[in-house]
């Protein structure tokens, strides 16, 4: 990272496999950067204080709240958003199950929910409905009541474990 002035800095990071260099305001949070500068509008802002999880993105392999991290903190990082996750087909089965089970309504929480669920699936361990519910509790959904989301994650987990 290069500080240009007091207010701006130049950062370079990898977003969905592409190397990007941008001058950002040092106070800009990561999702405003992704949405505004890179037009990756799949990550959503539901609260901007780290509660709802709609802005969840993967940074350095870990799911983080994109609203609680500054863009300048992502200098040098590998970032994956829902757009990249989709293109990589890493969770194509999960996405298919979300659609088939109608595990989303308005869809605003869905990218974040998929990000978190992908982390659970990647662990490769079986999980009960209770454990799935626990794992997803940092991501609010106001539409579905969660039941269908748990169904979709459970089905994907089962399919993967059965290979």
């Amino acid at each position, binding site marked *: 990272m290069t500080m240009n002035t007091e207010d701006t800095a130049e950062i370079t990071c990898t977003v969905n496999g592409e190397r990007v260099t941008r001058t950002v*305001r040092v*106070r*800009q949070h990561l999702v405003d950067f992704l*949405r505004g500068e890179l*037009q*990756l*509008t*799949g*990550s*959503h*802002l*539901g*609260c*901007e*204080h*780290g*509660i*709802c999880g*709609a802005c969840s993105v993967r940074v350095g392999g870990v799911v983080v709240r994109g609203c609680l991290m500054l863009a300048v903190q992502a200098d040098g990082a590998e970032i994956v*958003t*829902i*757009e990249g*996750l*989709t293109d990589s087909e890493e969770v194509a089965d999960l*996405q298919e199950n*979300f*659609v*088939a*089970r*109608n595990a*989303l*309504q*308005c*869809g*605003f*929480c*869905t*990218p974040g929910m*998929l990000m978190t669920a992908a982390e659970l699936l990647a662990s490769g361990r079986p999980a009960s*409905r*209770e454990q*799935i*519910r*626990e794992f*997803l*509790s*940092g*991501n*609010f*959904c*106001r*539409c*579905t*009541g*969660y*039941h*269908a*989301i*748990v169904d979709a994650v459970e089905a994907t987990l089962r399919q993967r474990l059965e290979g």
Partner: protein
Amino acid sequence: MATKEDLIRLERPNSYIGRNLTRSRARRAVAGRGQYTDDVLMPRTAHAAFVRSPYAKARIMRIDTAAAKEQPGVLLVMTGAELAERCTEPWVGTLTCFDGMKSAPQYPMAVDLAVWHGEPVVMVVAETRAEAEDACELVEIEWEPLPPVAEKETALRPGGPVVHPAIADNLAFRKTIDTGKVDEAFANADIVIEETFEFGRHTAVSLEPRALLADYDKGTQRLTIWTSSQCPHMIQAVFARTLGVPEHNVRIVAPDVGGSFGLKIHTFGDEVAATAAAMALGRPVKFIADRLESFVSDIHARENRVKGRIALSKEGVIQAVDIDVLSGAGAYSQYPRTSVFEANQILNITAGPYNHKEYRARATVVYMNKVPTSQYRAVGHPIGNSVGEALVDLAAEAVGQDPVEFRRRNVIPDEAFPTTIAAGIKLQDMSHTACIDELMKRMDYDALRAEQAVLRRQGIHRGIGIAAFIKGTAPGPSGYYGIGGAPIASQDACTIKLEPSGGVLCMVGVTDQGQGVDTVMGQIAANALGVSMESIRVISGDTDAVPYGGGTYASRATAIGGEATYQAALALRAEILVLAGVLLQAEPATLDIVDGIVVDAGTETPRIPLSEIGRIGHFQVAELPNDVKPVLSATRRFRLTDDLYIFTNGIHGAYLEVDPDTGFIKLLKHWVVEDCGRVINPMLADEQVRGGCVQGLGGALYEHCIYDDAAQLQNGTLADYRVPMAFEMPDIEVAHVQNPTTISDLGAKGVGESGTGAAPAVVMNAVNDALRPFKARVTCQPMTPEAVLRALGKV
């Protein structure tokens, strides 16, 4: 009108009606390709932010915007007074159908008096939202704080503070329903039970906050507004009238809507302000509410205190019900839908499933210096059902009957419909008894009671709750909005067109916020027309494209919009068959359409595909006789005629555990059996019920807008205002009794609010069932651990 053959087609085994189709919008959303209002990009977009009142009531003595105007990036600073000059006249949130109702005139931003904590006062528009917020910090306002009205209980006290000088007594509205002999019934009753219930304020918390992007084209004088809305035509009318733009020059586009639940059927002053800024600046202005300002500017709901009484014979027959509702509105009645519907609906539906003849229900709606209240999912029903079903449980206990058995004996039996209930409302096609039977099977009720008894002996306190309900859906034109003077259509419409390719465009006035309205309309049209889903595109949420309609609210999309779509598709089918008859030299009645091909009725021998009808009807009209003039398009509207609503009914069951040491409530399982008439897409209907339940459970257990004595909102963050999380919620089993409404040909009733309406009632009954051995009772919502411990006398 649907013929007998049309109705038979609805029931065909391979019909699209009753099939679990997935949603194309869902496919887009899982890829992160949804397009919400904030995702819409227009060149040169500026961004609005607001200075909001830090006081519940305060006079604005002086506003100094000079420093804000000097800030980098700032394009415009506008005070409430400056905005008022750009508006035609203030809003008055009354409807003439509510006799004697009063509300103070309201401008989009406070002019010289702010009347709630969070009311917008000054708007700053800048190149970026961050710059606009920076400049907001530099707006200097000299305030004279005034004593606010902070409690509904003291609002009417003579000589106390007033919310707004225009309404000297703080009274919004009073209404009474009275069958006439209630006092007599109570005097003669063997048993009388009384209880008072308190319901806290909630707010919708749509995950996507309110959002608007306005663009005014001075050349064509067109105002285009992209906004997260359920009701584009209502927004068009209100914004046009408020800002003095001809309605036909205003286009409202509702892109993907990130949750709404009633919140987004309303008009908000900050959104009008941002639109006025776009007109003043001649460039697009975007306003996306942040979560903190959402809590103090989105409508609130549910704040009510209800005193209830129930009169019984010693055999356990309900003789009369009497309720007195004190409803706490905000500083203004929300324009144009008002803030009195919650109370009105409580009066309409409380104890609605039951057979008593005497009923008195009084409502008093008072103003307070708080955020305005209005319609939130299942308006009034969570309160009315909680009160009615709690009284019924107490009544069952008083006569020593099982609560299910008591309900079975007291509900209006299915064969008694149509009938008029004690509240004076005509109901038809109800299925209380059938729903109770189905619920008992699903819950395995007797086994659950046995398990409860065993666990109780081990010191584990589980509760079983039951709550029956009625729900007003799909309101008709004779009741409230349009007839009361609001620019809100109670009918809805569909325009359906056969394109040259044989593809079908289906434009509907109802809108989709994720419920699957587009998919359901497609299923209805495909069935009626006889084409595949793949050949239909449904278009909604754009006033330039769709016929005039009310949009989606009050569980009306499928019941009203679906019937309009059904009738429009049947009309287009009839025209296609006439044209096919001309081309084939056949009687239209001998033809049918199956899977996009005109066939001989009965044998299904293919005759001519719709792509040929489309091609000839649009391009080769010279081949037709001169008197055949294909339109290949039909518009139909549907409205209720004689009925106030299409009422639905159902029953919830709940199983939960209460920890008497901590007051914590663990939900274990939830069941819903409901009757939404003909189910078009069972999966989508189930998910409406499940999601609705969880919103009801949130209100029952966690959600609460907490105000202090100075009427300051204390918990306006998502960390402090608790919405349900996945691990707190139970699995929810849903079943349908299908008793199609006789009000429409399609037979669909509304479904979107049946979960929310009764979930708080059933969970309150279950909690009190768990607490029964302690002779303790919770009568307030949210039922926090503290409330449980207070009921137990432990705090």
